[in-house]
């Protein structure tokens, strides 16, 4: 075997065990790149030139579908209205265009690959298994991204004298007080069902360690809050706990305290090294199907056989005929696009109401937050900017890009009505209340109101619970050969995993149909 090349070896394995043996062996040998990235789904192969697919929208869902289908022999064409690939997966760097309706911006960050801002998706939890699969298959390196950082602040202009407070302190005191209350309840055995003595003991221990209570089950402060002074060259001095009533009166327990309990936001999170759009780049590297940019879909017409898609391109109206169509155009824009879908199907599409997230990124001339001991993570504030995010990458380098505002739903209207300069000014003033001299560090900035972005006019569509019962299943199912896809057709909109999952659902449905007709024809 000494002179056997890897390829020859694989050939032998193939002869002995068939192509799936080659595939598995390649995986084991780490030869994925040699044999092409693996497909996630086991779709039935179609003879090249036999089945055609029109994919509308080159976001995560559209790219996933092209990637999977071209691998098994379908002829795919991606039609994208915008000047770029990626849809909401948008990372902004020097010179990039922010195509906001009526307020086009150009990103003025330094021409430096480390200076980037994830204007759409910015974090990925490990349980988003499809996202993980594609990042691995497309060789998109990920790194840990701090989401909750106990050294970051909670800030409220109306509480704690408007001074930012370290999350560590707030969390420790909140837990301490609650544990003390529970401890007192144990003393009184104030439970519906009296606890056995054994359970009482266990619960007492649990509560004591949960809140760091003293021997008597009282909370007197804890080193978990960070020391008032000392800790290394002298014994640390415990901080005086916050007044319990002040804590109850504050807002952070309502706003952010339990956000990391949310399964999707649980530590540790990840991000794509160098920018989240490396996922998009990964797809583009691995897709051969044509992606037509600046091509706005004009009409979708179901035919007895297949579908006609009309689109404009370079001043001409084109028609694309395909056997199947996968459509990720935001559903709230579909009413503006002529089609011959059934009334119910169109009503279902209209039932999805768009959200309007808003993000703002600021290039800071110095990483001043690191001088405050903050490395990554999020500060929360009651001000309209909601949050400040500190970058997890580029630690101790000179500059960094900070998220200066992140708002949701109705909150974003306020920023949408401003000019880009006004938004940066506002974010700077708000930041000054948290970090001394914050605004003076701002060198450059971009703002992205998703409710005002060209070809989007919203993001993360949701249905009312009643509409969901009436319509969700209806629009998840194909209308003829037309599949509506995207995170909008999932119970997890506003996460790429929703887009991947929707693509997977539609592909498996297609595959079933194709297999059924194949066997039906004998």
């Amino acid at each position, binding site marked *: 075997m000494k002179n056997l090349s890897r390829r020859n070896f694989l050939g032998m394995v193939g002869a002995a065990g068939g192509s799936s043996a080659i595939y598995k062996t390649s995986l084991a040998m780490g030869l994925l790149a040699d044999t092409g990235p693996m497909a996630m789904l086991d779709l039935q192969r179609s003879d090249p030139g036999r089945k055609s697919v029109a994919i509308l929208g080159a976001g995560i869902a559209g790219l996933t579908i092209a990637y999977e289908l071209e691998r098994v022999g379908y002829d795919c064409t991606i039609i994208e209205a915008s000047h770029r690939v990626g849809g909401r997966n948008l990372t902004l760097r020097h010179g990039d265009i922010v195509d906001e*309706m*009526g307020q086009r911006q150009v990103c003025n960050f330094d021409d430096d690959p480390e200076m980037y801002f994830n204007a759409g998706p910015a974090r990925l939890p490990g349980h988003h298994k499809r996202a993980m699969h594609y990042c691995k298959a497309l060789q998109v390196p990920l790194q840990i991204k701090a989401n909750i950082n106990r050294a970051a602040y909670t800030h409220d202009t109306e509480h704690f004298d408007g001074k930012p407070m370290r999350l560590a302190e707030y969390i420790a005191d909140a837990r301490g007080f609650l544990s003390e209350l529970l401890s007192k309840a144990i003393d009184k055995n104030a439970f519906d069902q009296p606890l056995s003595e054994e359970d009482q003991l266990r619960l007492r221990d649990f509560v004591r360690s949960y809140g760091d209570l003293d021997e008597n089950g009282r909370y007197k402060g804890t080193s978990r809050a960070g020391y008032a002074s000392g800790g290394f060259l002298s014994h640390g001095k415990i901080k005086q706990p916050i007044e319990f009533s002040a804590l109850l009166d504050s807002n952070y327990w309502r706003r952010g305290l339990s956000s990391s309990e949310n399964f999707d936001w649980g530590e540790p999170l990840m991000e794509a090294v160098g920018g989240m759009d490396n996922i998009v780049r990964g797809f583009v590297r691995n897709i051969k199907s044509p992606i037509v940019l*600046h091509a706005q879909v004009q009409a979708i017409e179901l035919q007895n056989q297949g579908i006609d898609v009309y689109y404009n391109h370079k001043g001409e109206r084109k028609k694309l005929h395909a056997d199947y169509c996968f459509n990720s155009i935001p559903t*709230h*824009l579909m009413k*503006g696009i*002529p089609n011959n879908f059934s009334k119910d199907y169109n009503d279902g599409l209209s039932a999805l109401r768009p959200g309007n997230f808003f993000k703002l990124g600021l290039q800071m001339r110095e990483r001043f937050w690191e001088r405050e001991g903050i490395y990554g993570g999020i500060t929360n504030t009651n001000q309209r900017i909601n949050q400040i995010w500190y970058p997890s990458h580029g630690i101790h380098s000179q500059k960094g890009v900070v998220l200066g505002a992140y708002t949701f739903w109705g909150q974003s209207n306020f920023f949408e009505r401003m000019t880009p300069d006004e938004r940066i000014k506002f974010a700077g003033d708000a930041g000054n209340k948290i970090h001394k001299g914050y605004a003076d560090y701002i060198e450059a900035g971009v703002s992205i109101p998703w409710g005002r972005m*060209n070809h989007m006019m919203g993001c993360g569509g949701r249905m009312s619970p009643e509409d969901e019962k009436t319509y969700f299943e209806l629009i998840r199912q194909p209308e003829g050969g037309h599949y509506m896809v995207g995170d909008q057709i999932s119970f997890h909109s506003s996460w790429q995993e929703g887009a991947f999952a929707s693509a997977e659902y539609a592909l498996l449905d297609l595959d079933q149909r194709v297999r059924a007709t194949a066997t039906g024809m004998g």
Partner: protein
Amino acid sequence: MRNATRVRSIFALIVFAGSGWASAEDVAVIPPDELVYCTVCHGIQMRGNQNILAPRLSEMADWYVELQLNAFKNGWRGTHEADLPGMEMRPMAAALSASQITAAAQFVNATRSPLPEKTIDGDIAAGKRNYVSCAVCHGENGEGNPALHAPALTGLDDWYLITQLRNYRDGIRGSNPADTYGVQMRATVQILGDDQAMLDVVRYITTLHSD
């Protein structure tokens, strides 16, 4: 693309002869890239998109489109805090130069799309009586009168008509003294009286659509 003619020297009017699909437009103009923005909200061929409260504008008279784009640009429209869709429109108009406004108006005028669906109810007979005062400027058949700066009322979405009547009534539109015709309209709308009278008149106007 079987047949292409020029409309007003800048837009290609494309006729899809015998496409065999009644619900798709047989006639379409292709906007230049900078006017694609209009169709993102107002829909392909400006057919309207109620989901995002963007009204149908197909075939609208170019002089009126120009007038209203300038009204937005000047802040006569789209500045009142109760007018969310108007505020959505304003930055778009503000970004257009005078020549782009003219081009946009010509594009809008050249678009074609099916007449809008009826979405509101009202008493047609009562509406007809109320319409008498409207007809003075907007014409017997809602055809409009450029000499009076009164736009055509046919082909507009009924939900959009009622919204605008209410906006005039409530001073959300037609309150800026510089907006002469808007101010005039605001004064006239008060004659209509209550909301039901407005719904009736809108219902009547939708019967004026001619195919």
